[in-house]
């Protein structure tokens, strides 16, 4: 299984993401620049954190019109796993691959600290290696992570089991303590906490590693076991 780490001008967690996949997960991975027009050779797409295009206008707003996002949308429609972390999540929201939007943190402060997350759904391709209700420690680092959606969207998220991670102690004011959601099909996950920064005990936690392992396992079951 081969991953792409998409790099926008202003991405700053791309190296962490690359390291997590290559060295800790042990899978193939390549950086892909934002003007790329083809992602066919990749099986999984990773949108890292940072401040794409300086976060001008709104976080993630400018990135939605980059060449590579047309390809990311295509990959998502093809059912490939797409993971957006932090700014990557914001880009997925702006692109419309995930419902809702981000507001400034309720405290108006940039928050950078480990957070306890509850794994709410273990049946997604991103979470099979976790226990249901498992509490994991994953760091957050954001100024705009205050997830918002209207009541109708929230009911849909609940009805379709799209809420994957919630905060145990909501740090930013997000609706229903939401930390991460998938699309309806379940192959696109956006989350504010950084699993790529929690892949080794040296980093304080390796609870994020299982997320990447889940993706690979689901992919192998689907494509390798069948052949």
């Amino acid at each position: 299984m081969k991953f792409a780490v998409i790099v926008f001008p202003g991405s700053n967690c791309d190296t962490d993401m690359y390291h997590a996949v290559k060295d800790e997960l042990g899978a193939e991975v390549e950086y892909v620049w934002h003007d790329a027009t083809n992602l066919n050779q990749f099986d999984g797409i990773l949108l890292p954190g940072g401040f794409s295009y300086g976060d001008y206008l709104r976080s993630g707003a400018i990135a939605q019109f980059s060449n590579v996002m047309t390809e990311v949308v295509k990959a998502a429609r093809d059912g490939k796993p797409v993971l957006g972390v932090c700014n990557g999540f914001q880009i997925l929201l702006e692109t419309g691959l995930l419902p809702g939007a981000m507001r400034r943190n309720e405290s108006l402060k940039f928050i950078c600290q480990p957070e306890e997350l509850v794994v709410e759904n273990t049946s997604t391709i991103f979470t099979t290696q976790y226990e249901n209700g498992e509490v994991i420690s994953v760091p957050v680092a954001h100024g705009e992570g205050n997830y918002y959606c209207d009541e109708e969207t929230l009911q849909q998220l609940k009805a379709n089991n799209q809420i994957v991670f919630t905060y145990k102690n909501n740090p930013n004011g997000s609706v229903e303590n939401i930390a991460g959601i998938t699309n309806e099909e379940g192959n696109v996950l956006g989350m504010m906490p950084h699993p790529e920064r929690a892949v080794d005990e040296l980093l304080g936690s390796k609870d994020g590693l299982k997320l990447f392992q889940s993706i690979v396992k689901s992919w192998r079951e689907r494509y390798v076991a069948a052949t």
Partner: protein
Amino acid sequence: MYKVKVYVTLRESVLDPQGKAVMSSLHKMGQSEVEDVRIGKYLELTLQKGDYDLDEKIVNMCSKLLSNPVIEDYRYEVEEVVAQ
């Protein structure tokens, strides 16, 4: 040429934490009459005249990029200006 002034604000139903902070600061200044503060963005676009529907074009730009309809509202004003 057209000069288009676009105002983007958070929707009424969406809490504006920045506006709230500014309001409480105004209250501390003694401006107790202030009941609400909403912070937004102001954009000025200069457009060439052409064979297009101006309102349609502005609405398209506002709803797809300049504002995020999930949390923001926009309004705009158009001024005709002479190119310099």
